[in-house]
């Protein structure tokens, strides 16, 4: 092909492009005009490819050495199974916390909202502390997670009840956040008091529980939690298009034919269920429920139909990686995973947010 033919070909192609563009502008048919920005699609593919890769890497990390353990030897297969179940624990906990954070941030229209904002951590912590110090956690199997879960849900009901006082049954966002903060503060001071009067042994157990860890729970508890978390995320996802509308405010959502009060109550219940399950499974792991939703929103936009499953996936993978780092980096000493989430994840996410915050929240 000589130069002039190529040039002519280019011109023909160009006019064809121009024609198509013109058609797009005139024609209202959305099959032509509706196209996702390619950059965002690229980012999505990249993320989805990274997920299995990161999970495989996490299986290769551990105090016994880097690389896949030898599955033929009994020790190797035990290590592999331990790493695998810790991965499952991390996926479940991280997904629950991140999905819960997404819903809280949407319902409360507030970037500071996180799974623990309505007193879930305080309530669950108080329940767990009492359970540990009373010795019930040793006497009855499963009593610690059950007590933690129930006290978290009870705290939400208490917070909701307090916030509803004097506003005709429909608490405002601000009264919810304020009552959550106050109830949390009361719970933590009671925990402080109990811990300060406890024996050294009891104190150690309580603090270790509150730091959180992904030590595999009993199979029964894992199965039960998996069902609750899957149900909770599905429940939140069903609400997701309504969450989009609620971001514009309760009044506007009402005008668009949404039962705003009902969506708020159901959403709070589902997200508290998720947070309470995560806390009863792995203790209080901070940061995941606050930052992962922000980063995923900044990367993939605030449309909750996409954001919610992506954040759940991202939260799970993030926690799995943090756990792998926590158990490897100072081996054989294991750092609490909650320390790693903020210490390692913090700077990384700050970098992303600094560049892309505009895509998440209006500054």
């Amino acid at each position, binding site marked *: 092909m000589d130069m002039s033919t190529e040039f002519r070909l280019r011109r023909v192609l160009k006019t064809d492009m121009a024609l198509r563009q013109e058609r797009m502008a005139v024609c*209202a048919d959305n099959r032509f005009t509706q196209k996702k920005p390619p950059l965002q699609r690229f980012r999505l593919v990249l993320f989805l490819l990274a997920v299995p890769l990161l999970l495989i890497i996490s299986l290769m990390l551990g105090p016994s050495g880097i690389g896949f353990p030898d599955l033929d030897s009994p020790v190797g297969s035990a290590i592999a199974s331990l790493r695998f179940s810790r991965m499952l624990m991390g996926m479940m906990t991280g997904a629950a916390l991140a999905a819960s954070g997404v819903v809280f941030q949407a319902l409360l229209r507030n970037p500071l909202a996180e799974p623990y904002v309505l007193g879930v951590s305080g309530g669950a912590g108080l329940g767990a502390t009492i359970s540990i110090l009373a010795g019930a956690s040793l006497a009855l199997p499963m009593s610690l997670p059950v007590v933690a879960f129930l006290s978290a849900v009870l705290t939400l009901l208490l917070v909701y009840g307090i916030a509803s006082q004097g506003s005709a049954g429909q608490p405002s966002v601000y009264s919810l956040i304020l009552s959550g903060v106050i109830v949390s503060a009361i719970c933590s001071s009671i925990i402080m008091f109990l811990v300060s009067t406890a024996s050294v042994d009891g104190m150690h157990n309580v603090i270790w529980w509150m730091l959180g860890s992904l030590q595999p729970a009993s199979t029964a508890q894992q199965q039960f939690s998996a069902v609750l978390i899957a149900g909770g995320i599905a429940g939140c996802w069903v609400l997701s298009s309504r969450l989009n509308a609620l971001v514009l405010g309760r009044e506007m959502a009402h*005008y668009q034919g949404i039962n705003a009060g009902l969506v708020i109550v159901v959403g709070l219940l589902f997200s508290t269920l998720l947070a309470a399950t995560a806390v009863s499974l792995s203790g209080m792991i901070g940061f995941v429920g606050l930052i992962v939703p922000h980063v995923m*929103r900044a990367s993939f936009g605030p449309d909750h139909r996409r954001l919610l499953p992506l954040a759940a996936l991202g939260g799970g993978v993030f926690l799995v990686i943090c756990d792998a780092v926590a158990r490897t980096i100072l081996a054989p000493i294991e750092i609490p995973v909650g320390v790693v989430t903020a210490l390692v994840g913090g700077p990384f996410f700050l970098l992303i947010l600094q560049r892309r915050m*505009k895509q998440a929240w209006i500054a």
Partner: protein
Amino acid sequence: MIMGVSALTFREVSAGYKHRKVLDRVSFSLQAGEFVSLIGPNGSGKSTLLKTASAFIKPLEGTVELFGRDVCHLPPRERASLLGIVPQKLESPMAFTVEQIVTNGRVASMGILGSATSTDRDLVERAMIYTDVLALRDRFFGELSGGEQQRVALAMVLAQEPKLIMLDESISHLDINHRNEVLQILLKLNREEQLTILLVSHDLSLSAAISDRLLLMQDGTIRAAGIPQDVLKADLLSSVYNCDLQVRQDLYTGALQVSGPVEGQKRSSPTGCRVHVIAGGGSGIELFRRLLLEGHRVTAGVLNLLDSDAEAARALNIDTVFDQPFSPIGEPALQRASRLSEAADAVIVSHVPFGEGNLVNLDLAAEALRKGRRVYIARGIEGRDYTSGRQATAKVKALMDAGAVGWESLHELLSVLHEHQKH
């Protein structure tokens, strides 16, 4: 207009917030296909009326019917398919794109899983084309200018496909080009698809030009309803808006033009007169403010220190005679006040309650009247007379017999003052 079908009916509706009733037994009806403007001063209850119409606020008494059905018992989804409201301002704290915002208009009809069908996408597309925001579809809503945001909000409500659209002062932020465009869209939808429209507006002339009917609200009630010529009456508007308004009809187009005192001020030179005000107990604050605004020179007294009128007079820098708080007015203060009232062209007595302590202030008025000053006294002294033996009532009666003029509303007082000033 489709005759006989009522789009929205209020029957004796009272509604409001927890400790404050805003709507007071409001009754009116919109016919399907009508274009109606809702006008009225700030705080007259227009926004509350819109919220009540969509059952965001439940009425305390009475019923609201949307196309013949009680709005409080309509399922939310059906309500949204009948009524759409464009808010004064739409706020999105998260960075949604314009298209995502407009898609929200379909949220109720998209079903529980929220998957948009091609019909939904077409409706969103059409709404964006109508409102000229198609080019902005991938921009962030929060980055747009106020007028662009308003058009996006309108697109969202159009995508909802309601049969009745209410706009809450939504077009006041638009530039003249887009305001006309939006109005054209509304008029077209009204004409061709029998969409019923209720426009809350502060532009009285514009409302008159485009509406079939006007509803005029005042203090939570419908003060007047009817065709623009019947509602836009100078005296009615002046009393509702509490200022001097003129209504003129354009000789060629027949369009009604409402103009206010500001337009008039440019043409007339400010020749205020000097007035002395006898007030107290908070009855003088609004009087001071309006007299000063009209360009009069105001003096006041005698006022007791700590009285709310005394505070106001001091804040407004009005030359005022004060006396000690919570005690009868003394002779020296009275003499100083009488010098001020003598220097004035007119003396105004406000709706102030009279007791033994401030009764002498009426003697001030009597003295001014004797010296040929004009005296205006607020009517209804009987209800404010706390003196023994009704001395204040007797004194006011004597004053009126001697030629003092009574007044009721501020608007009335100001126009009488203006008349006198001309002579």
